């Protein structure tokens, strides 16, 4: 997968490195600000209240 992506990045080496870092940053941002906030309340790790349920 990573090899495939690397081969399909356009431009000279320096530009490719930059593009690869940018891709990683975009994926991280989507995970941190969209996926994890959605996922987190569904995980049984952060319940701090006592309740009858």
């Amino acid at each position: 997968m990573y090899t495939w992506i690397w081969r399909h990045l356009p431009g000279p080496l320096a530009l490719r490195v930059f593009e690869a870092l940018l891709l990683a940053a975009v994926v991280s941002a989507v995970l941190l600000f969209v996926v994890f906030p959605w996922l987190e309340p569904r995980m049984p790790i952060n319940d701090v209240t006592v309740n009858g349920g």
Partner: protein
Amino acid sequence: MSRRARVEDADDGVSAYPDRERGNRRGDLVRAGMRGIGQTLITLGLVLLLFVVYEVWVTNIFADRKQNQVYRQFQRSITTGEDPLKGVDRLKLPAGRQVVLPAGEGFANLYIPALGKDYAFTIVQGVNDADLEKGPGHYPGTAIPGQVGNFAVAGHRVGKGEPFLNLDQLGPGDAVVVQTARNWYVYDVLGDRKTGNLDRPGPQGVVGRQIVAPGDIAVIDPVPGRPGTKPTQVLMTMTTCHPKYSADRRMVVHALLARAVAASGKQTPRELGGTL
């Protein structure tokens, strides 16, 4: 590099080794498959690591911003004299008096000097996810600060501002200071101060600290652990998850009101280094 070059040759239909082509193709497929599995596992590992970073760090950034908002809103309501506790903010308000507060709004500040000089949080009304992201949340229906009964507050242990991260470090006699618009209420953690034993029961049989099942709602009753009993004491209870990074159990700390003083300008009580 040479291996990939050969794959590309094969894709072009021009093989450098025509007689070994079939075997190589099968080998390449196996190699590509193994590499794919390996990369997927590494990727999953990185995503999990990122989730940990999110939980213990990124959620704090969001929560701090929200905590700041409720703090400022509460301070504003004090200056305008329209804070949520207006009219009921007095010592030993009878237990029968149920006070309804606006959901999600700050109505008191919490200071625990034993957890650091700068330990300060604004307590909001409500204990759902959105409330607790703003700060420690007051269980609706439980007593308000200074009221006879049990002022119960829940807070996150790890991430989301983590107000109760070090709740396990509190010992008997440690001050838990609650500031409302008009008063300072100083609660002391229950238990035996001489030996540091948190299990020793105080008034009405209430101990300093308990580890309970998540369903043990009796710990926030007016008399903790004794449903239906008439409260005679002014108590405070804090709940959080236990152990850290888990929601398996709940850690519960009970404190008893030691004293209350009327607010006076910018002065703070002795417990916080002031003169009141």
